[in-house]
């Protein structure tokens, strides 16, 4: 009898003792894990646990109500697309990622529509993007009325810039003031060839790409209608009419100019297929200039540092924003995520919280990087990108907001501000926000991509005779079905204009 009552009272006592703790335990949940898969151009770190922990502890302290935790996964460019596709197809947890190309992931229904989540948990993103970019930029990732991803918040205006060797320019007697358009260059090339015959006057910035198409698109205000890679079916200015860029007189003129340059020896004979890199040619002092698209004003400085030469940069044509210029690099949430709200909360932090994005990029302060002032960082003494335990320093352009990211010592902060200003200044196409739904035309697009690869690199490097080749190109495009693409694009464009004007 006594044992029983003793037992009972002990039991009672224990229950009372533990009750408060049980009550607390019921309220405290495990933080929801959000898997962020992003691309890294640095060495993949062996162990990301420390960085995960640092971010998670910070979140717990500063935003206790959110109850989320990050799980970072870094993949190199060789495997990123594979890993993303496999993870999405197999249901392996992956919540936040960069869909490249955006259209393909939308078509497969692998992205979660974000409108309602942004309204609830992503207001910070909206404010941030609007501040840095100007309103309306979120439109560019809207397909069929749904917001499928969020543009990475950075300087997008890649103005067409002639990058040139200053010392070689000095030899010609001309100055930077003389470089205002592509038409100004041939006379400079001629002067150069007199002085230095085995320097290449002009080389493509990368294999088979003299940037001619980008130049035409920006100069003549061409909206590529979601098709920067093949430009099949575009709109000039605000004409509202979808046409074949390759039948236009602007294209023919541009190609003829390149052909002229090629025959006069301004371009290397194997420009269309050469693997030589323009940076390397600069470094060897064998190249005078190239045409590229760069944001900000520092590219001359950057290339000078890299090549050891005195490189200048002259901006000749301003960028023109169509949807794809902005939605090339975006971040979205997987459609099969188990934690959509936690994912949006995490995305909000990535875009708006300085500590989170910089820890993701540079690791742990003191161990992986040293903060030099409010906007700059450097490696700890004696260490570099390969020897710090964690760094993703090259990935500033794939995630988050550039206005919050630290810059390496030597890069000017003003330049970042300039890039953001350019975002606001750059002219936008009247069809900014239009995205083309390709699902009905996959066969045609596949065939057109092949035709593009077959003719365009050689044409824009001047290696083929324009008069006969442009004809062949357009015939091949017609056979591939470009007319059907144009008709469909016109249909979708007209419908979009009605609902958006």
């Amino acid at each position: 009898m006594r044992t029983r009552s003793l037992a009972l009272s002990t039991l009672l006592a224990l229950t009372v003792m533990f009750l408060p703790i049980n009550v607390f335990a019921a309220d405290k949940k495990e933080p929801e894990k959000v898997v962020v898969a992003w691309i890294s151009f640095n060495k993949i770190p062996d162990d990301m646990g420390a960085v995960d922990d640092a971010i998670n502890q910070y979140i717990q302290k500063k935003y206790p109500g959110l109850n989320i935790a990050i799980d970072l996964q870094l993949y190199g460019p060789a495997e990123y697309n594979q890993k993303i596709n496999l993870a999405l197809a197999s249901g392996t947890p992956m919540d936040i990622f960069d869909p490249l190309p955006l259209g393909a992931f939308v078509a497969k229904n692998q992205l979660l529509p974000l409108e309602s989540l942004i309204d609830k948990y992503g207001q910070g993103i909206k404010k941030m993007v609007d501040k840095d970019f100007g309103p309306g930029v979120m439109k560019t990732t809207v397909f069929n009325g749904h917001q499928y991803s969020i543009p990475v918040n950075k300087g997008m205006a890649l103005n067409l810039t002639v990058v040139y060797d200053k010392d070689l320019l000095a030899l010609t007697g001309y100055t930077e003031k003389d470089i205002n358009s592509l038409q100004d260059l041939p006379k400079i090339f001629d002067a150069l060839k007199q002085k230095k015959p085995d320097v290449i006057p002009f080389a493509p910035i990368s294999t088979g790409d003299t940037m001619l198409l980008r130049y035409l698109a920006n100069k003549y205000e061409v909206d590529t209608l979601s098709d920067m890679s093949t430009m099949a079916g575009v709109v000039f200015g605000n004409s509202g009419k979808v046409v074949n860029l390759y039948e236009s007189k602007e294209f023919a003129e541009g190609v003829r100019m390149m052909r002229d340059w090629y025959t006069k020896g301004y371009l290397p004979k194997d420009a269309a297929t050469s693997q030589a890199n323009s940076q390397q040619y600069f470094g060897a002092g064998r190249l005078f200039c190239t045409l590229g698209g760069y944001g900000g004003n520092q590219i001359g400085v950057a290339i000078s540092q890299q090549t050891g030469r005195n490189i200048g940069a002259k901006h000749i044509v301003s960028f023109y924003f169509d949807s794809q210029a902005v939605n090339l690099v975006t971040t979205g949430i997987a459609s099969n995520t188990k934690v959509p709200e936690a994912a949006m909360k995490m995305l909000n932090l990535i875009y708006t919280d300085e500590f989170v994005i910089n820890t993701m990029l540079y690791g742990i302060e003191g161990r992986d990087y040293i903060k030099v002032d409010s906007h700059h960082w450097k490696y700890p003494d004696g260490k570099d990108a390969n020897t710090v335990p964690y760094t993703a320093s090259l990935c500033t352009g794939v995630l988050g907001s550039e206005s919050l990211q630290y810059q390496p010592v030597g890069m000017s902060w003003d330049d970042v501000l300039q890039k953001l200003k350019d975002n606001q200044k750059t002219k936008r196409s009247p069809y900014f926000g239009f995205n083309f739904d390709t699902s009905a035309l996959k066969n045609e697009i596949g065939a057109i991509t092949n035709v593009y690869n077959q003719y365009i690199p050689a044409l824009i490097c001047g290696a083929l005779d324009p008069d006969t080749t442009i004809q062949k190109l357009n015939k091949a495009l017609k056979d591939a079905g470009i007319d059907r693409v144009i008709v469909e694009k016109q249909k979708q464009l007209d419908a979009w204009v009605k609902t958006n004007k």
Partner: protein
Amino acid sequence: MTQAKKSTNTGPLLIIAAPGLVYLLINNYIPMLGIIIAFKNVDFGKGILNSDWCGLKNFEFLFKTNDAYIMIRNTLLYNLVFIILGTVCAIMIAILMYEVVTSFCSKVFQAGLILPSLISMVVVSYIVYAFLNTETGFINTSILKPLGVEPINWYAEAKYWPFILVIVQIWKTAGYSSIIYIAAIAGIDPSIYEAARIDGAGKVRQIFCITLPQLKPTVVIMVLLAIGHIFSSDFGLFYQVPMNSGSIYNATQTIDTYVYRALMQLGDIGMSSAAGVFQSIVGFVLVLGANYFVRRVDPDSALF
């Protein structure tokens, strides 16, 4: 008595075969169910299993193009040349290997057999580039220039590429393939050769009367298998070695490169699966036909 044996050994033999069969089931047959992807319009919102069927729609892009004729022709012709030339070279190398008795020579030659197969096609493409590029390539600077011939823009002229690609492919695979024939020759009973020698037959006679006939089953397997893949091609050889140069598509575009380029922007999993299914089915039908033919002529050599 033979009948009793037949039924008693089936059990143990099946057990011995079991590990391999289980592996085939898991590694090959279960994933083969994924072939349904080729016939579906995959919508990941519904999941693969619940997506809509779309019949043969995913296969259309392979045919609704002007390139269809070129890519199929190229794939077929290159493979035919590879099969014939490759087999002849591999057998030749294997037979000649047996003539080399000096241990040092044979060691060096054997190392040479596998070396090309160790170098990836990407690296091979850079080596080819070192030979063929217009500005600094060997052929233009060290051979054509001294002879006073104009440098050739190799990567822009389609007519040279059938030869270039065949040479590269044979270079890369002949040694590796010859290993298989070397093993097959090793299994030939030496006493047959002894008997022939005593009868006065010279080396060449021995090769044609003994070695080659003995190699028949091996050749049949190799050729039948190659026929099974006759609609496939080595992506590295046809995409990377030509440095993805558009001007020479007529000579370098195969089914695999077309599919890769077509789907770069689309990322459509149904279409890429359809391409694979198409290649497999054609190969399968051809092999069945070829095997049937072999079975009529020499039943022992047939695959099945």
